């Protein structure tokens, strides 16, 4: 602990100064400073978007955005969390939608207000091309929206910063669902297997396995053949 005390930094949590050890994430720095989260902490691994944070560094004009669990605290950081962002979200039922070029703009007319300022892209902690996918949404290009937005963790920082008041991540969610449902068919091998299961093809064999004692079951387990990775094979996407 002695070394840790030598290496302390000051962070300003909602304006209040706290001494914390260097090298912690913003989230852990806040906990070290005595906060117990109710809001603002979810998966703690960069997948859930619960810990959206805005901050400024000492002497900088720039307002930065980050995930508290994925960003190291720095000396002189002024920060606050943004644990919830109000975002417009219409109700829809994907079964009833016939996706066309204008569908996304129909459900989210505000996307046409985009002024291409790129603030959403700059605020994205996942470094996604948010503005580009909003432009693709206006054109109804579901595939591009899906690809560009796929890693979105729905933290809402883009929504908080957008001067055109767009709810980017909700637009992308609808686009991805429509693409998945209508433009990416269910593989035939899955349908074949479903038919076989429904016809009871595996029932007898599984019943037999269920009736086996541990010893016989272990024999079958050990005897099964293992499929191997072929070295040097170039896999598809």
């Amino acid at each position: 602990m002695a070394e840790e005390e030598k290496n302390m930094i000051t962070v300003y949590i909602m304006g209040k100064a706290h001494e914390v050890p260097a090298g912690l994430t913003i989230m852990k720095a806040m906990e070290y400073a005595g906060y117990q989260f109710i809001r603002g902490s979810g998966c703690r691994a960069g997948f859930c978007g619960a810990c959206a944070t805005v901050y400024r560094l000492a002497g900088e004009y720039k307002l930065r955005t980050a995930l508290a669990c994925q960003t190291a605290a720095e000396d002189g950081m002024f920060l606050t969390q943004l644990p919830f962002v109000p975002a417009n979200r219409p109700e829809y039922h994907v079964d009833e939608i016939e996706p066309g070029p204008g569908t996304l703009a129909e459900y989210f007319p505000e996307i046409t207000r985009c002024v291409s300022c790129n603030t959403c892209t700059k605020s994205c902690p996942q470094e996604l091309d948010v503005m580009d996918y909003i432009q693709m949404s206006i054109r109804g290009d579901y595939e591009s929206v899906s690809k560009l937005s796929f890693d979105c963790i729905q933290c809402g920082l883009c929504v908080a910063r957008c001067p055109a008041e767009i709810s980017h991540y909700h637009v992308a969610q609808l686009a991805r669902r429509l693409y998945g449902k209508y433009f990416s068919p269910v593989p035939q091998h899955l349908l074949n297997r479903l038919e076989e299961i429904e016809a009871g093809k595996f029932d007898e064999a599984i019943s037999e396995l269920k009736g086996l004692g541990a010893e016989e079951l272990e024999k079958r387990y050990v005897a099964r053949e293992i499929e191997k990775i072929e070295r040097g094979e170039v896999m598809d996407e």
Partner: protein
Amino acid sequence: MKLIGGYTEEMRESIEKVEKTRDKRMKMEFEAMSMAERDEVLNKYHPDYKPELKRAVAIGPNKGDIAPNEVVDLLEAHPLITEKDIDLSKIDYDVDLLIIGGGGGGTVAALWANDNGIPAENILMVTKLRHGDANSMMAQGGIQAADREEDSPILHYLDVIGGGHFANKPDLVEALVKDAPFILKWHEELGVQYDKNPDGTYVERPGGGTSRFRLHSSKDYTGMEIMRVIRDEFRNREIPVLEFTPAIELLKDDEGNVAGAVLYNMETEQYFVVRAKATVLATGGFGRLHIQQFPTTNHYGATADGLVMAYRAGAKLRDLDTVQYHPTGAAYPEQIVGLLITEKVRGMGAQPVNKNGELFVFPMEPRDVEAASFIRECYGRGNGVVTPTGMHGIWLDSPMIEEINGEGAIHEGLDAMYRMYKRFGIDMTKDPILVYPTLHYQNGGVEIDANAQTSIPGLFAGGEVEGGVHGKNRLMGNSLLDYNVFGRRAGLSAAKWAQKRSKPGKLTLRHVSSYEKQLMDAGIKTDRRSPMLLPDYRGKKVLARMLDDVL
């Protein structure tokens, strides 16, 4: 401390050795272990095989059964409320179906109950954090389903039961493997995007302990992709949800059926009473108990609340004596210690190698065997790489992935991993990454039957909270599958149960008082209280746990 590409000079020296052996290793196959070799490494090195860190539960339906001390501590603890604290004649929410837990299992249960006759307004979901804050959101690698011609549910069954040390409940394994292809089709209809080949077939990869390539993924955001789609569907149906308001105790009616729960709003500190004809428990697992001081891959709320509530109400638990340590948690840099490095990294070809650049284990053993081998390599053979904070770790040779699958394969298939390391200055396409086992999954839980019915009438369970599906060790890709299969079955069974019944009679917390009496009779004197709800990391408790104490 001087860092080169994110690593210290000492670590760089070891990386050079890894690079030197790479070409030779690329062509190497390391033999999988025999059952006897598996037993040997498990007995000596797996954290579960340390009897001194477990004890028998002193009271309740599983009296005499062994579980980790951290779990027994929560079971042998006083409730947060007593019978006198809550006025049960004042009902705040009166519904057909109460769903406790806002992760994958609860969401799937709600959708299927709604599809089968329970109107949205007669369902209530309650959750401790936000809807979707759950391990379901964090699963990276994928979901198993035996849908290729060269695969079958029979092989899936053998893999699951062998990986689980033949201790699984056969009816549950059968349900898991036979429902799997149906679940994928349901996902497709909702608009979930799985990785597909140009010919429209699924991209499928191997997982530890699977005899066929059977793992379906959505890059390395599989859990997130499924969770955000089912949550979106849930929202469109306007099913009511209370966030930051966990259940803290189950309620029963005068016939002994589970009939709702007492809720606690963590923000306003108010209690609420829910009366429900049927209750689904989907509270997830126990990673945040930090069993044996291990760091964890789990989300902030994984504190075993459901186990505690169900046990006090008299439900039987099972298989809680084993804990899943994922072989590959991040061991460096310090900021991400314990976070999940998906098994897909090995599935795409990265080998685990020691500080000398040697491959020392078949990369695709079941998780408990692989984890125990890593611990042996570090502490038994002294071949671990030591980090600046004194942690030991094993290299995952990630640059192999692009050599095997072609340039861009990491961006295409492992973007979450790439992004996480890049945030801390490491490029995993060029350098290997350092890993060590991390606390990952609650193998056991509340016992259910194939209809997801627990041992108490009116209470159903789906997802990590229940036990029996995975026996003593879960295989990769079966947790996303588990919460879908048994979340669905819980929703269907609960809907059927609710439709047959009139409103529950007088509500009671008598079981909580009786549990208190059992504690007293067993001579347990403690100031522990449970459920835990949230871990406390304030002050120095937040600093990384010392893994050196483990052995």
